[in-house]
């Protein structure tokens, strides 16, 4: 005769350690302050670089490949020599690298929502925007790392910025300001689109035209008039021209002011929308 007894408890030794660990916990508090919470989320973004280096590698190998390919394949045709072309195209390659990286802001956020980490963060007693702002701070650091990669490779194949180290630093800072502001838009997309894969698809559709239909890789004078019209209103054009001025040692105050104003405007418009979506998400 076989006997099943289905109500038995599995033997498990956990009780005393658990009770002491739980009872020994400090009483509930009000959570970390705004700055600490934000920095904690930035720390998380940096840990991700260590655990998922592919994200950073994808974003940096791609431009390195482009740098080499464009310089040696198109350089002679577009400007006359690979060396001269590198000097012309570097600001564009740099901008493209970092602008493309901004989409990972949306991918990461969307993954958090899908996996439930987002609910966990939203139920913490912390400053509400901390997860979003912290992610942006972490992402900005990643943009800096990618920029260093691009300059490293360019230097190896003979690039020397006429504007010197100051020009390089200025161009990178300008780029980081612009891309942090642009990231707010990606946060909106990350909060709205259903899956991380959809984010990737949508973003490529937007980013390729934005970065290529600009003076990043070829002088727009050779393009048809209607393409030139788009180039003229493309914000990446503005960014590339301003960065080029800094790198070449001939900064244009008007361009710089416009980029900063545009970055400010993007933040003012997109940040409240992103925060509102974040708070209201059901």
């Amino acid at each position, binding site marked *: *005769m*076989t*006997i*099943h*007894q*289905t*109500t038995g*408890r*599995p033997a*498990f030794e*956990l*009780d005393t*350690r*658990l*009770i*002491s*660990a*739980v*009872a*020994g*916990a*400090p*009483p*509930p*508090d*009000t*959570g*970390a302050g705004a700055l*600490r*919470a934000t920095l*904690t989320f930035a*720390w*998380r973004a940096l*840990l*991700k670089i260590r*655990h*998922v280096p592919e994200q950073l590698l994808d974003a940096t190998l791609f431009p390195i490949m482009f740098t080499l390919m464009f310089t040696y394949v198109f350089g002679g045709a577009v400007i006359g020599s690979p060396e001269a072309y590198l000097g012309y195209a570097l600001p564009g390659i740099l901008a493209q690298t970092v602008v493309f990286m901004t989409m990972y802001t949306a991918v990461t956020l969307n993954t*958090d929502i899908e*996996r*439930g*980490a*987002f*609910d*966990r*963060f*939203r*139920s*913490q*007693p*912390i400053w509400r925007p901390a997860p979003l702002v912290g992610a942006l701070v972490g992402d900005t650091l990643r943009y800096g790392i990618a920029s260093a990669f691009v300059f490293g490779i360019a230097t190896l194949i003979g690039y020397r910025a006429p504007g010197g180290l100051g020009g390089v630093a200025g161009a990178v800072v300008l780029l980081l300001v612009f891309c942090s502001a642009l990231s707010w838009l990606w946060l909106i997309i990350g909060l709205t689109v259903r899956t991380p894969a959809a984010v990737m698809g949508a973003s490529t559709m937007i980013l390729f035209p934005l970065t290529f239909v600009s003076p990043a890789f070829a002088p727009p004078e050779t393009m048809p008039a209607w393409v030139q019209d788009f180039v003229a209103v493309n914000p990446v054009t503005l960014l590339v021209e301003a960065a080029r001025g800094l790198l070449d040692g001939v900064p244009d105050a008007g361009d710089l002011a416009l980029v900063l104003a545009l970055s400010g405007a993007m933040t003012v418009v997109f940040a409240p929308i992103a925060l509102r979506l974040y708070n209201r998400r*059901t």
Partner: protein
Amino acid sequence: MSRETWAIETRGLVKAFGADRAVDGVDLEVPAGCVYSVLGPNGAGKTTMIRMIATLIRPDGGTARVLGHDVTAEAARVRARLALTGQFASLDEDLTGLENLILLARLRGHRGKAARRRATDLLEAFDLSAAARREVKTYSGGMRRRLDIAGSLVARPDLLMLDEPTTGLDPRSRGQVWESVRALVGAGTTVLLTTQYLEEADQLADRIAVVNHGRVIAEGTSGRLKALVGAGALRVRVADGADRPEVARLLAVMLGAAPVLEPDPVALSLRVDEPAAVAGALAAITERGLGVSEYALAQPSLDEVFLALTGEPADGPAPSREEAST
């Protein structure tokens, strides 16, 4: 502040997604310091209810208070006192177990070394020390669940909400989660857990609310609920199919319930209100030379609970009021 006696108190709580009233007028009173279980099938509105109480979504109607604080007007106070472990492990899979807990400990106000110490203690308590430096994506389902619960305890919450904490776990991991819940209550935390298993609710909970289609259809202690649905079901397999009618007749007389003859020609089952009487009945059957090859006494399934309470199985058709409400 005068209503601290209730860990959770909801009045006419409603949440609708389009025409679907996921939560449709729920009144709950969860006393502080107990384990309270919300029992119901998939889609009954359990998760939506929990998300409203945890301030993640706003109620469309009614009120919910956590330890006296309104979830809409005083969301920040509510968040400071509760912790939520969602249905899916809400962890960062790319980070290690230790990093996940340090992150949460920092968010809860532990600084520097204190955050790391807290994380290490919890990993130890949940038997995860050996996996502390592994990325969470390499964890088994049971390990994730334990880490997830540990993440809710970085600051001792007054109220811990667990959304289907053992769904999809093997029996051993389930036992570990149950032990964790008991330990927590021992330390003074109120626990609200949702489940699809009567056994789980019965093992852990002081009180149980049965929900279906966004409404509470029964509420009380597990003893009261069992009085409504019966303590369990006895399933018997006879050695020889020819004996089945006689065994069924004897069981019906001795246990006072109508046996159900199952499709399997040697199997039958019946509802049992008094488990102690089962042994005697089986002994009497074997004494008469009738062979019983196997028997099992199990708790009623969720289907049987719903059958007893509503007259329809758990996944039965939605009542017509849904059409009427739109």
